[in-house]
């Protein structure tokens, strides 16, 4: 029924950015991320009649994606020892993010831009080149007149600082000692 499909596509588009971010948080391989994403959407469509409408859609979708990702990693012999434990930590954070107001991942993480603005200049320039302009760290190093290792460390520190900033704003939870 086209109407159902349209409604489903709207729902998927609303959750797509968050789902992709969830998968990227767990796996480094972009090919696995994209394959798990697509398979998850297809699996979700196929089992839509089992969805409990009284519950939120996001966690259900991520649960399906998690299963797909584990299957893919296992089939390629790339399952990490503590991935399940790590996934629980990540899933808890996404559940918290989902409670924030906003339709999309970007809306829920609007504070990230404010945190970016508060970074020291060097870190912000490194993040800008590496993420917003999609340069690799060597090209970013050339553009900034620095060596590769310095840029890598700046990006690393910047990510830590951004996480700290989001924790301070209550968007990410404080670590449990």
């Amino acid at each position: 029924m086209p109407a159902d499909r349209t409604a489903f596509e709207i729902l998927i588009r609303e959750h797509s950015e968050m789902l992709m971010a969830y998968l990227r948080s767990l796996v480094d391989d972009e090919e696995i991320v994209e394959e798990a994403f697509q398979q998850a959407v297809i699996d979700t469509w196929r089992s839509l009649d089992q969805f409990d409408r009284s519950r939120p859609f996001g966690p259900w979708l991520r649960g399906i994606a998690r299963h797909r990702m584990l299957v893919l990693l296992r089939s390629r012999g790339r399952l990490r020892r503590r991935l399940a434990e790590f996934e629980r930590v990540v899933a808890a954070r996404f559940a918290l993010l989902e409670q924030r107001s906003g339709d999309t991942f970007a809306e829920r993480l609007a504070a990230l831009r404010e945190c970016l603005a508060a970074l020291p200049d060097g870190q912000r320039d490194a993040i800008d080149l590496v993420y917003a302009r999609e340069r690799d760290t060597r090209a970013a190093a050339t553009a900034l007149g620095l060596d590769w290792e310095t840029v890598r460390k700046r990006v690393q520190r910047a990510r830590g600082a951004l996480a700290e900033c989001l924790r301070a704003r209550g968007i990410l939870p404080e670590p449990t000692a």
Partner: protein
Amino acid sequence: MMRVPPPDLGPLDAAGATGGDALERLADERIVHAALQTLAPGARLRLDRAVQLAMGAIDGEPAPAARRRPRPVDDARPDRHRPFAALLRLAPMLLITAVFLAMAQLLVETPSAEAAAARSLDAVVSATQRLGPRRYLLTIEREGPLQPIVRRGTVDVGPEGRFVVRFGPPNRAPIEAFGYDGEAYWIFGARGPVRRSLDERVLAVRGELGELTSLLVVDRLLRRLRQDYDVVIADDAPARDGTRFVATRRAGARERPWHPGPDRVTFEVAPDDRVVTSLEATWLSAPGSPRHGQGLQRAGLPGAGLPRQGPTDSEGAELAGDRQPALHPKRLRFELLRNEPLSGEPGWFGHQRHHDDRREVVDEEHAPPRLRTPRRLPSPPRVI
């Protein structure tokens, strides 16, 4: 694919060697890494492509509700007996169903009007995606200090989400325009640069349209109605040549943080191609109520507090400067201009077609944030 060194997942290989605290910090950095990847100019396109691929894969499949499990076949029974045996098995069930339906008919006079309207709205949303380019006359009415302030313009809706909103005299360069060219949103005023961004909300704080930018394209507004509004087909005053829908904001609907959705939306749909011929959105809440004044500056928008290469003083008067608190929207009206067909040429939806060549173009994502503290913080949207 991004060539970014992500936070190392190595600790996950060492059983028990990493404490829970370290895993949590790693999770936070991985989430930040994933979120930063959405800043890339091509991220939105890649995501769209992934969704399209997945949706393309399900196109050949029936809707979940339509699927039925195949019945097991009793091979021991001769073929010629199967229809009679099936009827015999079904007879009690048919009898119970008939009794149930008869009782239900006594209890329920008509099928749910909301369900019928929702189905019709789905059909309209679906048809809208197949329609060609259209032009609407746009009227925005806000509550002024003494009397309503009215602003008129046009909205051109193009393929794949493209649109152009133009304010100013017809057939002349617009005094303000806002649009989406298929890759990024853009906005410009009578003077100053053209500003481009992948996030329309970054631009929303620049223009006088403010929080209304998200409501200016009929197609998107319809999809929002499907989510947050109770929609019925009006039978008290049916439209002469089509269907009139009335949508009322659902109690308990999620508040969108960066624009106050209208309380009531009425729209008419043509019977043949299901194009929306007119639409009126109305805000009923009294000024001063909590919903009103839920402007951009209070919504923690991306870009709202971000220091950038700010607009110059001359531009400020047009796009970003000297703003006063936003006036409350009162009414938003669209009327389809059937006698002004658009070509749908993608170039029309780029900003270049709507201003002279001398304009500077500022890419909000590519322009690095200003290193010094800005002299002036972004102020609220300017009064129309």
